[in-house]
């Protein structure tokens, strides 16, 4: 059984749908529990949307490489893009405890990923941003 899913998409939001469907099929075929599937898909959507919206200084087509590896205890997702150097983990959610009128509507994506994933790492290598997410296959009850 194949234990790594690899996909390359371009920097267009509509490309996400086929990636999400492939991810769902791949993880469900391997009996990963529904909570872990949901969280991995959530992380992919939030991170890749962030790259597409904020990662590039031109209007050219760019490739984003995605790998989802199944290990015995965890799922490791890797997203690689050739945009400008950008570490989303340095973003802090502003006004997160503010009352409703002052509450910001943006910036929630990275915040919820930090909360729900077991590990999120960023590195810059060979002019590329590499984001790695780790999620346990089965969450403790």
């Amino acid at each position, binding site marked *: 059984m194949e234990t790594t899913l690899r996909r390359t998409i371009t920097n267009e939001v509509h490309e996400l749908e086929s990636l999400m469907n492939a991810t769902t099929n791949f993880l469900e075929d391997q009996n990963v529990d529904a909570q872990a599937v949901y969280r991995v898909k959530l992380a992919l959507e939030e991170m890749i949307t962030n790259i597409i919206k904020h990662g590039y200084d031109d209007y050219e087509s760019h490739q984003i490489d995605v790998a989802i590896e199944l290990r015995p205890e965890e799922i490791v997702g890797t997203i690689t893009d050739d945009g400008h150097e950008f570490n989303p983990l340095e973003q802090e959610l502003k006004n997160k405890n503010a009352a*409703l009128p002052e509450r910001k509507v943006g910036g929630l994506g990275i915040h919820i990923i930090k*909360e729900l994933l077991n590990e999120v790492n960023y590195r810059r290598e060979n002019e590329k941003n590499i984001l790695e997410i780790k999620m346990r296959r089965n969450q403790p009850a």
Partner: protein
Amino acid sequence: MELKAIHTDDSYTHLALVGKLDIPGVGEIENKFIGYTAARKKGAVIDLSGVTFMGSMGLRLFLSAAKALHRENKVVVLLNPQPLVREVLDASGIGDVVAIESDETAAVAKAKA
């Protein structure tokens, strides 16, 4: 993504969302949702029991509506999210400023207040 208007009168609005609140899903219903919430200026119950996936775009939608209605002294109440959607709501901290209810009668009472 589907938006159903369950109840609309002068006292409150009751909507139900069905499907995935991902980027395409939010795009499909956003204008209609704003029309039924911020533009109507009535307290709103949003039934989430039919929502199977929600990311930060969904959170934005609800926070924006809640902020707009707050200016009219009205509230948004989120009703019956599925467990995995509830996790996202809880992780975001939105529950500090937007009510999340599992009981429809209580949700409607808050929206009508």
